[in-house]
C-alpha cells in the first residue's frame, strides 16, 4: 500500500461522510415523500443541500471505483468505514452533541474492524482471484487488466 492509495481510502471516508450529511439535511427540508407522489423524489435533487450532497457523493464514487481497481471489495468497505467515526467526532466536538458510552463502544468496534482488515493484504492473491469466474466473457481482456 502506497501513500496515494491511503489517500484514496481517506477520500472515500471524507466524501461519503460529507455527502450523506448534506443529503440528510436536504431531505429533511424536502419533507416526507408519499409513494402516490413518488416523482417528487426526482425533483428533490434540485434542493441545494441535496445537490451539494450529490456532488460530494460523485467525488466519493470516483475514489471508490479507483480503490476497487486495486483492492478487494471486502477490503475497501471496512477500511473506508472510519467515516462513521468522523461523523460522531464532528457531532461531539462541533455540534456539541452528547455521545453515549454505547456510541463510544460502537466507535471502538468500527476502529477495531478497520484495524483488523488493514493489517491484511488488500487484494486476494491472483492465482485464486478470478472475478470473472462463472461469467461468460463477451469481449477480450483489456490490456493492463488483472487476469
Amino acid at each position: 500500500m502506497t501513500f496515494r492509495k491511503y489517500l484514496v481510502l481517506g477520500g472515500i471516508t471524507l466524501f461519503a461522510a460529507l455527502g450523506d450529511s448534506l443529503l440528510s439535511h436536504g431531505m429533511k427540508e424536502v419533507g416526507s415523500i408519499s409513494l402516490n407522489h413518488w416523482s417528487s423524489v426526482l425533483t428533490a435533487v434540485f434542493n441545494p443541500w441535496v445537490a451539494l450532497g450529490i456532488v460530494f457523493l460523485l467525488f466519493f464514487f470516483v475514489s471508490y471505483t479507483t480503490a476497487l481497481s486495486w483492492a478487494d471489495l471486502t477490503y475497501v468497505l471496512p477500511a473506508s468505514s472510519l467515516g462513521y467515526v468522523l461523523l460522531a467526532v464532528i457531532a461531539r466536538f462541533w455540534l456539541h452533541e452528547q455521545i453515549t458510552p454505547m456510541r463510544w463502544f460502537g466507535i471502538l468496534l468500527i476502529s477495531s474492524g478497520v484495524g483488523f482488515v488493514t493489517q491484511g493484504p488488500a487484494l486476494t492473491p491472483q492465482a485464486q482471484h478470478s472475478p470473472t469466474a462463472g461469467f461468460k466473457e463477451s469481449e477480450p481482456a483489456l490490456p493492463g487488466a488483472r487476469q
Partner: protein
Amino acid sequence: MKHAYTWGAIAVVVLASTTGDILLARAMKQVGDVGELWRRTCLWTVASRILRTPSFPLGVVMMAVGFYSLLFALSWADVSLVGPASASLTFVANAAAARFFLHERVDHRRWTAALFVAAGVALLAG
C-alpha cells in the same frame, strides 16, 4: 404502515447496493489499476475503458436504484435509523456476496472486520 415502508426501502437499499458493489468491483478488476493505467495512457482512455466494461453501467444503475431507495427511506425515517441499518446490513451482505460471486478470499480477519464494523454502525444509531 410507515414502519413497513421504511424497512422495505432499507431492504431494497441493501439488495441494490450489494448488487451494484459486486458489479462495480468486477468491472474495475477487469479494467486494472486505474492509477497505473493513467500513468501509461490519458484520462480519456482510462474512462472509455471503464465505460466499455459491461458490468460497470449495470453496477451504476443498481447504485442509482439504491440511492433513490435511500432518499425514500430518509424522507420517512431518521437518518440515525436508515443510515446505520442499511450500511451495517450491506457490510455483511457484501462480504457473503464477494466470496460467492467475486471469489475473494474472505478469511476470518475480513469476516471479523465486516461484523465489527456492522455492529459498530448499529451501536452508533443507539
